[in-house]
């Protein structure tokens, strides 16, 4: 038998006699996409997790090199499809930084509202999917009840439910639907009425807590060293909310808290996301009645040309820090574009935290890392 400390300290565990090497994925119910993990097991204990990526790699970075600054934003919706708005937002911000355009106040507020709605929708889906990984099916449907409402709101304003493509350089594509405010308020009412079910059904469940607490511990130092971001680092007690540290749009004027937990285990990461939903609701409540009048889009040229140089923006998606790095040669298309996706770095920590735990825990950890495979593969 292996002592857990041996497994954790040995960087290059190689399969030995009696070990079982299992392919989890590319098609597996718990990976929620085409993630391929090769795990080395001793009985039920995990010795090593090795991710193999690329099953959904579309080389978005290469694709963007031949698309104009207006076009490439639409491709990025397909990266982290659960926070499509925020991806688009990051790209639009980066282009705006290069163009140095001022965005009208109305557009800023609409963007932040959309971002926060997306964040809630993403966390709802995560909550349901994670509970399903743990073997509880019911939460998935409860989560979708609220998520559908958000998707309906999105559909009304953006014309799409998942890949919205609503943000454009200079603002948003069109004004919000007349029903937008009313329906968002209805959603807030629904959310407040139903959110206690989440705690009753999952958070307070003794089996759930036993499955989560003390599982997949990630120390604050490791969280930073592995380049984790978003709820994963905040679960370890490291302040990493880009909205607070490097505020963009109007986040510095809003009243919301950065959620921090000190546990570092799966349960802390879980609580972060649950509490983040409350914070997002708080932001939406502040803004929904205060959408300023005015233009929803700044005047920009039909053909955008970024000056020669390098532009980097960071935004906080539902999964963590998304960086957009544009290298411009002065043309209408980016010379090189790099998306620093949160999922990619968050995945790299999986081997570190999974060693020495059981297969069931691996699933719980993957759930709390909130992996979205197209975001990892890009």
């Amino acid at each position, binding site marked *: 038998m292996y002592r857990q400390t041996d497994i954790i300290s040995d960087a290059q565990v190689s399969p030995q006699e009696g070990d079982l090497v299992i392919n989890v994925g590319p098609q597996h119910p718990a990976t929620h996409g085409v993630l391929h993990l090769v795990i080395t097991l001793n009985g039920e204990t995990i010795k090593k997790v090795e991710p*193999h990526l690329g099953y959904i790699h579309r080389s978005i970075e290469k694709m963007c090199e031949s698309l104009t600054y207006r076009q490439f934003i639409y491709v990025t919706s397909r990266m982290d499809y659960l926070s499509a708005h925020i991806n688009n937002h990051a790209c639009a911000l980066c282009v705006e930084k290069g163009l140095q355009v001022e965005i009208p106040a109305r557009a800023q507020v609409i963007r932040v509202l959309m971002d926060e709605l997306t964040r809630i929708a993403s966390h709802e889906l995560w909550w349901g999917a994670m509970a399903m990984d743990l073997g509880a099916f019911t939460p998935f449907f409860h989560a979708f009840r609220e998520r559908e409402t958000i998707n309906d709101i999105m559909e009304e304003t953006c014309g799409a439910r998942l890949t919205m493509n609503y943000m454009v350089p200079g603002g948003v594509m069109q004004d919000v639907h007349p029903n937008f405010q009313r329906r968002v308020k209805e959603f807030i009412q629904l959310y407040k009425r139903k959110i206690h079910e989440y705690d009753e059904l999952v958070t307070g469940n003794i089996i759930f807590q036993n499955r989560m607490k003390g599982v997949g511990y990630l120390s604050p130092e490791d969280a930073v*060293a592995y*380049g*984790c971001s978003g709820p994963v680092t905040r679960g370890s007690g490291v302040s990493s909310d880009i909205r607070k540290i490097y505020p963009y749009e109007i986040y510095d004027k809003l009243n919301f808290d950065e959620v921090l937990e000190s546990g570092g285990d799966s349960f802390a990461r879980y609580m972060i996301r649950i509490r983040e939903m409350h914070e997002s609701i708080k932001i939406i409540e502040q803004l929904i009645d205060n959408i300023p009048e005015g233009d929803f889009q700044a005047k920009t040229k039909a053909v955008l040309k970024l000056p020669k140089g390098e532009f980097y923006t*960071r935004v906080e998606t539902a999964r963590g820090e998304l960086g957009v*790095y544009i290298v411009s040669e002065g043309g209408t298309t980016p010379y090189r574009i790099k998306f620093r996706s949160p999922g990619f*770095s968050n995945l*790299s920590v999986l081997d570190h935290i999974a060693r020495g735990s059981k297969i069931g825990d691996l699933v719980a950890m993957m759930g709390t890392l909130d992996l979205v495979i197209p975001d990892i593969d890009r």
Partner: protein
Amino acid sequence: MTKEELKIKIAELLPAATLDETGEWLNVSVDPNDWLLLAQQLRTDPTLFFDYLFCLTCIDWKTHLTMVYHLSSTKHRHNIVIKSKLDRNKPEIETVSAIWRTAGFHEREVYEMFGVNFLNHPDLRLLILPDGWEGKNPLRKDFEDTVNMIKL
């Protein structure tokens, strides 16, 4: 630390580095041979304490490759960009995966996409590309895939 202070500090640590402050953050260009030493100092020096490598990538300039490291400090909240010019035909640079562990994963991506050889990397294998991938590196500018790429 502000940009000015960083500039002075870096100039102290590595006089050979070229500094460029036109962008949002301080850009430091270093020789690939000096990189590992500088990286250690950036990580350990208590006034700098760059513990968070948030972006690691490479740019193909057709004549040469440039490695770009975006660093940030979770303590001091300052950022810096380190660049290193590599020979396009034989790109080699020391790995920093021992200093920032996230680099291990990101360097594997750069390795297969740009063909940069990271010296002393513990596990330099293909990550995204399929096993047995032969030929050019997809993100280089001269990469052609007649089957899957559409020219606009």
